[in-house]
């Protein structure tokens, strides 16, 4: 899951070296934290959060397949 978020984020931003993804396992839910360069925030959030929503939707599909609950937070 972490790899998936990382790959999508690195494909979208201008500065892929600054993409950092951490996975925090929990009892009910895995939290994935995504960090990018400040200049690249717009590239992973988008207008009205449209890009962030698309990333979350794709990750959710991957999580359903693994029977897990995942939330992606952009920090």
């Amino acid at each position: 899951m972490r790899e998936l978020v990382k790959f999508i984020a690195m494909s979208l931003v201008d500065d892929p070296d600054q993409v950092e993804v951490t996975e925090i396992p929990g009892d009910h839910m895995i939290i994935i934290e995504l960090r990018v360069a400040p200049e690249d925030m717009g590239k992973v959030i988008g207008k009205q959060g449209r890009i962030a929503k698309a990333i979350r939707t794709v990750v959710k599909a991957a999580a359903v397949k693994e029977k897990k609950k995942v939330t992606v937070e952009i920090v």
Partner: protein
Amino acid sequence: MIVIEKCGKTEHEAIESALKELGATRDEVEIEILEESSRGLFGIIGGKQARVKVTKKYNYGEEAKSFISKIFDKMNVQVEIEVEEDSDKIRIDLKGDNMGLLIGHRGETLDSLQYLTSLVINKGKENYKRVLLDTENYRQKRERALEKLAKRLAQKVKRTGRRVVLEPMNPYERRILHFTLQDDPHVITYSEGEEPYRKVVIALK
């Protein structure tokens, strides 16, 4: 875009070695001859090597396929990806066992993948190419379903005289509803609300 320069005994040889290094075919590149080869005296003295500049053109379809296939690798799903490219758009068709998962609720996963692919392949490019992602003819089936829904709801509006507000839809789906009822003499359609919760309304004229 990747550019490399190569030398060789002949132009042909230089081009071939450049193509090999780029992993490209002739129609995927632009070739510029920088220096022509010459045989020189008796083919030994003063011979000059050919020098060529080979530029690999950006290939939207290939980039799209590579992006999507990597996503599916990381999702652990086996999908066959077919890409068709023309001057302004790329059609991608997916085939596999788990397509329901990739379509998602009302196509939201398919739409998200389509949107992300479009962002990635058009990033920093002058020309914009539209990406159309489909599987198992989902787009057409959804279109037919929306047309039927529009006609059924129009009947209801005529019967009851009350307007009907549909659930939020994306611009593409709203367009299908407006289009289906545009020639109906008894009802009008319009959208209200803000994206991404914009809804189509069907009302009496």
